[in-house]
């Protein structure tokens, strides 16, 4: 696809399992020959159960884990071929939001530091501009400026996830991997965070790889849905079509298992 921002082809991430036994080695094929693309401003939902490889997929695309083979092209550039310096430069344009905001934010930093650090590392603000920029980021995610002086443990799960979102959007990236961004949250808070993520995505036309085990959540945000099972994409298509008329038996099983509300 020509207008794709992220093109993943033949991507493999295998992990060695156990030691060598008589010279042969067995592998866990966490991501096994995956082809996907994410267009500019598009949200691609990746759905799968635990162990399907969806988290490894997200991390492989950003090279937070090193893929075994295949190709990931970002804006036409081969990510897997980049050296350390080029990769760091590219990281400004590709961000990630993790499931557990508690472990993804440093407990010893105030929110002010957490949000300003990426800006400083990438030389996007001077010391004087920091406070203003951080306040703007907090406002963007619906938090009052006084949160600047707070530590992550002084905040609720929903507030922490807002900070994680603010940090991901701080560098004005073009692409964000969201790995189960609302799964750890209570349902009433989950809706707020989901709405926030969605409105920011639309406003800034950011592309998302939205990973979740929850089909109903993915359906709310995704343009297209890819269903992952045992390291492979078993079905991919327009979100409404995948939900309404699944083709692969595994997708059907998954859909049938979701409890319905009267």
């Amino acid at each position, binding site marked *: 696809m020509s207008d794709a921002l992220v093109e993943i082809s033949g991507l493999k991430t295998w992990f060695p399992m156990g030691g060598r036994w008589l010279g042969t080695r067995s592998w866990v094929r966490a991501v096994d020959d995956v082809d996907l693309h994410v267009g500019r401003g598009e949200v691609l939902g990746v759905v799968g*159960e635990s162990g399907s490889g969806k988290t490894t997929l997200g991390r492989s695309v950003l090279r937070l884990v090193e893929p075994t083979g295949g190709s990931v092209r970002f804006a036409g550039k081969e990510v897997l071929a980049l050296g350390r310096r080029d990769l760091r430069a590219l990281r400004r344009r590709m961000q990630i939001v993790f499931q557990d905001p508690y472990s993804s934010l440093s407990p010893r930093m105030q929110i002010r530091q957490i949000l300003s650090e990426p800006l400083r590392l990438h030389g996007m603000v001077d010391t004087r501009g920091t406070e203003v920029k951080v306040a703007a980021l907090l406002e963007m995610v619906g938090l009052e400026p006084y949160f600047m002086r707070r530590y992550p443990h002084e905040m609720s799960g*929903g507030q922490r996830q807002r900070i994680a979102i603010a940090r991901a959007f701080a560098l004005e990236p073009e692409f964000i991997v969201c790995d189960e961004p609302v799964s750890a949250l209570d349902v*009433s808070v*989950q*809706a707020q965070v989901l709405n926030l993520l969605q409105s920011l995505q639309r406003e800034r036309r950011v592309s998302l790889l939205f990973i979740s085990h929850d089909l109903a959540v993915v359906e709310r*945000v995704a343009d297209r849905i890819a269903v992952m099972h045992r390291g492979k994409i078993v079905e991919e298509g327009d979100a409404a079509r995948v939900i309404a008329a699944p083709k692969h038996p595994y997708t059907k099983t*998954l859909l049938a*298992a979701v*409890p319905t*509300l009267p």
Partner: protein
Amino acid sequence: MLLHVEDLATHFFLDEGVLRAVDGVSFDIREAETVALVGESGCGKTIVALSILKLVQWPGRIVRGRILLDGEDLIAVSTERLRQARGGEVGLIFQEPGASLNPVFTIGAQLVEVLRLHRGLTRGEARREAVRLLDDVGIPDANKRFNSYPFELSGGMRQRVAIALAVSGRPKLLIADEPTTALDVTVQAEILKLLRHIQSEYGMAILIISHDIGVVASIAERVLVMYTGRIVEEAPARTLFRAPVHPYTRGLLAATPRLGTGRGTPLAGIPGTVPDLLALPEGCTFHPRCPIGDHGCITDVPVLIELAPNHRCACYKAVPVTADVEREP
């Protein structure tokens, strides 16, 4: 009435103050009935379950209330009698499928132990019954699996074994605390199906505790909604899902994404977060997040009022006008 809980209060005495985890909860469970206790994290639902079997540990303590199981007050009985009731008349399963299993014994040995203790079976009888139970909860090749250790089983299989263990004492009440939360959605569907099967076969009552309204909808006949240590609404499942009254219940339902609705309109989240139990708001604890509250809600603590048979709600704004007028000084 199988279980009658009356004005139960379980508080935690912390350095920072008294945390009222459960504060005046009353409900009944009839024989063979499936009741769900639903609410978000920190609402006290797990503490209700633990309180029923007096499993709350210091600094937590039951400070008030009665828990009548078949008319017998479990708060007042001896430790010996309590031990008999746990795993006997009342079975318990937890969120973590391994939580009720001992990792160093085979699943068969653990079942046999319970069967001998609670049902007084001989070793041979207990073994046969254990295999039958494993088979009944859907463990394939039960005779062989009898000798498996918990770590050799998947999470779903472990939860099946935990269910077998919980029902082995032929309980009248099974308390299931978030029994499917740690499981994948396909496995969750199987476990819920199993619970329904077990329920109809053994005719026991189930108290299922969950944060997931979808899970509750697929199994419960009656639903209790908890918020900050109190029940705010109680209704038959049908009524609760079709015509919820309490603004918190309505908020929870509106915030839950439903499959097949596409992008639709944005989900209506409940503003704010569940308050800190050590610093609860005055009056109705939901008022800071409530879309329909007024100044009266800041001062008056709402009590559960019967709106219709079997339908109770603790909200002054949700009851007929007459009650609203009575409240004015």
